[in-house]
């Protein structure tokens, strides 16, 4: 039994697939690392809002490119800018405790998407396929995307190497971190910004709506398998790459879009793991009696 994915990768015309796979595997590194912080700090919901807000920037990017004639402006740049702005807004609210956190998160989420949708509707010179941004479309992955992913991924990696111990401290016990002179607001904000940049990395492949699952599910599985955070990161990176490979293979076999296929694989693995874990736990507790 051959792999559809491997056959397709050998297809000379399928540059986009090779780019998509390379981008995915490169991004797995950031996804596993940042996902570990996001899951342990329990800010999945915030990271989700940031990802959805990216549509605002994508919309603006498309508008700027096609209507304002900014040919150099890749919609992905817009996505990054929008994600950064939304993480600054949410981060400020959380840190100052000035407003209800969940309300502001929800509002930022919706407004970001509204802005994006309106901008996209104002693009009249070309037809924009909104779906491809919402749910991903590997046909659009180009070599320049690969560079963006590589550069941002390396930046995330460097920040992690520099400040891992501070991030662990604020994820585990903010109060203690503060007592040790750690600038908690600064590192919290940095963490949100890293999540913002990371979710954008795979927007082309997975789309903004589902990208959060690929950020958090590998890390959540990693947390069950590892004893410590470094181990959790390694597991998360590995699992994320496996999800991407299996998801792409699955999408080729059923001839379906890659993004939802990858997420479906990730979700099935996650819920399957939970189920098996519960069953094993049940058998064990009843076996003891």
């Amino acid at each position, binding site marked *: 039994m051959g792999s559809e994915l491997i056959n397709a990768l050998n297809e000379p015309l399928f540059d986009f697939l090779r780019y998509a796979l390379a981008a995915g595997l490169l991004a797995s590194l950031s996804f596993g690392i940042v996902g570990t912080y996001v899951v342990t700090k329990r800010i999945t919901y915030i990271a989700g809002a940031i990802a959805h807000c990216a549509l605002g920037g994508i919309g603006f990017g498309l508008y700027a490119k096609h209507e304002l004639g900014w040919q150099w402006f890749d919609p992905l740049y817009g996505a990054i800018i929008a994600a950064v702005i939304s993480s600054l807004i949410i981060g400020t609210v959380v840190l100052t405790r000035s407003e209800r956190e969940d309300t502001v998160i929800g509002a930022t989420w919706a407004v970001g998407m509204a802005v994006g949708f309106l901008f996209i509707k104002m693009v009249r010179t070309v037809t924009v396929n909104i779906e491809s941004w919402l749910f991903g479309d590997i046909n659009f992955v180009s070599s320049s995307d690969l560079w963006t992913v590589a550069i941002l991924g390396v930046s995330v990696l460097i920040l992690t190497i520099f400040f891992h111990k501070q991030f662990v401290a604020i994820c585990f016990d903010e109060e203690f971190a503060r007592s040790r002179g750690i600038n908690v607001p600064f590192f919290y904000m940095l963490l949100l910004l890293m999540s913002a940049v990371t979710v954008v990395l795979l927007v082309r492949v997975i789309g903004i709506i589902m990208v959060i699952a690929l950020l958090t599910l590998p890390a959540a599985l990693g947390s069950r398998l590892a004893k*410590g955070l470094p181990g959790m990161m390694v597991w998360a990176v590995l699992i994320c790459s496996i999800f991407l490979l299996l998801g792409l293979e699955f999408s080729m076999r059923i001839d379906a879009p890659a993004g939802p296929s990858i997420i479906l694989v990730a979700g099935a693995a996650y819920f399957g793991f939970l189920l098996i874990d519960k069953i094993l736990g049940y058998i064990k507790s009843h076996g003891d009696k």
Partner: protein
Amino acid sequence: MASIEFKNVSFGYEKDKIIIEDASFELEQEESICMVGPNGGGKSTLIKLLLGLIRPWTGQIRVFGNGPESSRHLIGYMPQHLNFDDQFPITTLEVTLMGCLSSGSKIGPYSRKDRASAEAALEKVNLGEMAKKRFSTLSGGQRQRALIARALVSDPKILLLDEPTANVDQSVEEEFHNTLKELAEQISIVLVSHDLGFVSGWLEHVLCVNRSVHMHPTASIDGKTLNEIFGDNIVAIRHDHDCPPGEHIHHHGEDCDHGK
């Protein structure tokens, strides 16, 4: 030189709401005290002032002669714990290492020296063999000791504990106080507690915090006085009943009598 010195310190979070009013007290080096007071009376605020996390409106705070911010590394701190998530994958050693955050390099991983001190601190609280184990697998008492190790790792001169036994059962609490008692022979302990009974045998002074701050000799505090000052939420029971007759007359005053 006093280890901790408060001079006419006042503080509040909002303009017209004063939390700590004109607090003045001194703590001798190697002296240990217990801090008591009702909820909302200002204990946590006093801790934050002591750690330099907030600045007083007026007055002066000195920790070993310097401002609290620059003396932070001299204070080992154990927060009132910890919404610990059992799924958080972290080893006991990794938890303990966080005590090294205030010393050492700000960039990059913990040094070999940090790791050695963290391991030594775990040995000190008899958790050496749990270093590589996941923190969530430790028992309640072991977790408390690991957090003590984390506070001790930077080799502090003062150990500051905020209600360390609030969420553990009584046997753990007793064991924990024995650990503290031993430590108190080497460093100065500032213990925030609802329960004076455990500590009245080995702490000479009690710091009563309820907007105003007063230092009392432990011997002069009895249950009745505490009830008058703080209302009902303070427990003052002596848990070790075997006070030698001579000792309790000299050092503990009425302690054994109001115990029940």
